[in-house]
């Protein structure tokens, strides 16, 4: 009876989280820039049955390298739900995280109510909430799977080995972030060894398997990138000009997107877990440690690292809260216990839900193209030749290739892209230069037919002077964005 009740509550939490996600994601009918890339790749699968291997529009035509599993999954759902699937399915997968976190917390603290509360917390982690909202993000599936793997690994036995192997393979096929899980296991091994804790034999075997399979699959999928860049592949061919800021880690941003109380309770949980030699907490700590090290070494984009870090911290906070609740029972506050607990838990939820909702509504407004932008791009699509090239800033590349279906000079899919640093510098120069000669040289270099000037670019560089030459540039749209056709 008790189990049924908690399952009912869990389903309710799941539905609340799903509803909140759908509410925000359907505030706009568009996706963000990276969402349009996923859309285009899955469209190609729908049309041809095959993943896109050579992208004729990106970078004026270039090879692309990625694992197409996520795009296949989305394509299957798009057959049934159409374009709705691009928001619905990621929301569904990311809401499943509450179930995984519930299972994990229950295993850590063996307290049903607390586990349900932690599950609720995990549904509103800002870092995860906003990054999986309107981008058809692969992380909406990768994050729950990684934490499900941690759940399987916690009490691994012969019965669960098959499932562990299958999900381990699945995660490796899905996304290179599986490396983070392998490194987390490695960190767990080191932490356990340093605490003189013996790891069960079957866990050792599973760790070795995970390491080897992840390593193998990543090499198999990204062979070309390894051959091209060698060890430098870890920088993903990011242009040198933005490499420094690309991996920048902002502590205050972290406090806000992880939730200050989650961070405090999570870190306390990890410290207490290590001090009390709790194997399950050590496992979560391994993942936290691996994420922090990768963030510190600037090998992991903070936006991505924070998603995993904050979920891990929420899970670890279960341990602190459990100690806190049992401590309260021993104090002289038994009469006020309930109200005290409600205040603390309410604060935690507020520290997560409020930033989530604030950031989500901001993200939904600012990260998607405006209706006018879409109108402009659709006009270009209808009224220009199929092989024209549009120059746009880095953050607009995928929107243009998907909506206008035209070639672009650059976008943020850097792996295997040609001369990213040079292109980035040329595009920056194009928007910032005052010399028309210099601008025309760049225009000729990349065969640019249209210059797309969004409001962000004008705010950043000021008004572009050379575009006023009516002989060379014919204005087509003068709002935000502005679009000029190159005519000389």
């Amino acid at each position, binding site marked *: 009876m008790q189990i049924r009740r908690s399952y009912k509550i869990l389903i309710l939490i799941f539905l609340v989280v799903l509803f909140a996600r759908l509410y925000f994601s359907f505030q706009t009918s568009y996706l963000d820039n990276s969402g349009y890339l996923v859309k285009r790749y899955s469209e190609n699968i729908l049309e041809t049955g095959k993943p896109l291997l050579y992208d004729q529009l990106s970078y004026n035509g270039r090879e692309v390298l990625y694992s197409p599993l996520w795009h296949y999954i989305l394509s299957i759902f798009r057959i049934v739900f159409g374009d709705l699937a691009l928001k619905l399915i990621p929301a569904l997968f990311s809401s499943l995280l509450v179930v995984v976190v519930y299972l994990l917390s229950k295993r850590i603290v063996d307290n049903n109510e607390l586990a349900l509360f932690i599950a609720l917390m995990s549904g509103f982690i800002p870092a995860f909430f906003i990054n999986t909202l309107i981008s058809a993000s692969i992380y909406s599936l990768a994050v729950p799977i990684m934490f499900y793997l941690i759940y399987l690994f916690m009490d691994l036995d012969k019965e669960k080995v098959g499932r562990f192997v299958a999900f381990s393979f699945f995660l490796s096929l899905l996304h290179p972030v599986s490396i983070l899980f392998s490194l987390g296991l490695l960190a767990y091994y080191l932490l356990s060894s340093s605490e003189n804790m013996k790891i069960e034999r079957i866990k050792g075997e599973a760790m070795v398997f995970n390491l*080897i399979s992840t390593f193998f699959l990543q090499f198999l999928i990204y062979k070309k990138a*390894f051959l091209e860049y060698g060890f430098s592949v870890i920088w993903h061919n990011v242009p040198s000009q933005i490499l420094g800021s690309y991996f920048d880690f902002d502590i205050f941003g972290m406090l806000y997107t992880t939730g200050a109380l989650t961070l405090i309770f999570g870190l306390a949980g990890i410290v207490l877990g290590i001090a009390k030699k709790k194997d399950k907490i050590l496992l979560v700590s391994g993942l936290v440690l691996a994420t922090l090290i990768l963030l510190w070494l600037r090998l992991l984009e903070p936006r991505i690292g924070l998603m995993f870090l904050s979920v891990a911290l929420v899970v670890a906070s279960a341990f602190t809260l459990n100690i806190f609740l049992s401590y309260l029972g021993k104090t002289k506050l038994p009469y006020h216990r309930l109200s005290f607990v409600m205040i603390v838990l309410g604060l935690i939820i507020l520290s997560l839900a409020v930033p989530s909702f604030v950031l989500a509504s901001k993200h939904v407004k600012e990260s998607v193209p405006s209706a006018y932008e879409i109108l402009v791009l659709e006009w270009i699509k209808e009224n220009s030749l199929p092989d024209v090239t549009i120059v746009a800033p880095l953050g607009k590349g995928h929107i243009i290739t998907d909506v206008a279906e035209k070639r672009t000079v650059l976008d943020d899919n850097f792996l295997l892209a040609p001369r990213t640093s040079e292109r980035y510098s040329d595009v920056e120069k194009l928007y910032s230069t005052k010399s028309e000669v210099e601008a025309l040289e760049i225009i000729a270099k990349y065969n640019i037919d249209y210059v797309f000037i969004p409001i962000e670019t004008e705010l950043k560089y000021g008004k572009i002077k050379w575009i006023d030459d009516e002989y060379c540039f014919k204005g087509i749209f003068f709002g935000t964005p502005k679009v000029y056709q190159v005519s000389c």
Partner: protein
Amino acid sequence: MNTASKEYFSEHQRYIKLAAEIGVLILAFVFLLLPGTLRESDFPIGEEAYYHLARSESVFGTGFGWNFLLGYFPLNFLLLFTGLLSLLFIFLNLKMLKLEEKLLALGFFIVSPAFVYLFNVGERFGAGFLFSLIASYFLFDKKYLIAAAISLLILLFDIWMGFFILFLIMLYFLLMKEKKKFFYLLIGVFLFSTLLLGDFSIGIVSDLGAKVGSSVFALSFALGCFLFFWNKKKFLLLYWAAGLLFLFSLKVEFGIFYFSLLLSTLMSICFFELLRAKWESKLIRDLILLIIVCGLMFSGLSYANRISKEKPADDIFNALNKLPDDAVVFSGVEYGNWIEYSGKKSVWHSFMNRDKIERIEGDFSAVLDSRDYSGVIGVLEKYEIDYILLDDELRKRWGESGLLYLLRYNTEDFRLLFEDDGVEIWRFFR
């Protein structure tokens, strides 16, 4: 009934062994023929073979033993023959291992990038490697003089390889005679000179773009073996030897071939050790071993595919064949051997003395980087250049300034003679 069953199983075992032997042989044929089959051009892979082919029958130049052999036997036949014979001698040399370990070691070596390179790219090292295996066969058979005599033959193919094998024979001899002081002294000298002399090469992993190297899976597996079985006595000598050869490979070009062979042997022993070890989950054990085998196969196959796409393509020789014999052609240093193979004279090639290459490079850096007309013409005249060969790769490397700028805009001194699929020949009027 009992006896019949026993006989059945012993027969059965024999068939399994036979099937494994045939399997290894087929694998060898596959990896010896695959790059050639995948290749679109009929021309040999890479540039090294052309140096030897241009000097076939000659008893001069680097690797003159190989040059001499190429005068009498076709390159493809020689590569196949030396490859198969090498495998036979590896099999004979690994007599201390069980049959299944020997076969697996052979299999691992066959799929290694080193093997694919040795017997698909017509360099002199393949023959040298074969003779070193023959020498070690006699060495293990305690026929020291024959072993030393065969090692001397290696000098005909590559002097340094020959000295290296003689050094190994000496080490083995000292070990057998239990002269441990001298043995360790020589190891120390070897280690010291390996660390101090020459430059370290960073490209040793073929999967990360090295020209010839080890598979990343082989290196990782060997490292894993070391972590798992570091306290097992039977691995100790192999680890030491592998460590030394690894260092040696970072410095010396041919070191990687011996390192790969040792690595294959180590991996084979480790593989069976893992197979026999006690596992909680048989599923995990089988999957791990399967992934290891798949990883090694993947490395070998992707390397075979990679070298099959190596230059030269037909269009380079089509262009060169249009030029008169003995004309002096300037191009990239790695194009030199192709130019000479086609009967023309090259300004430079990769087998030249390093100092000489650097000197020519210094002269031509002005040609390639500056637009100074008289400077460029002066260098071209100094080297008596008649023609300039260009392709997409060189255009990308040399950029738009310097010589390429002059070729485009100076019609008085340069004229485009031929252009096909990105390959261009320009005439320089001296």
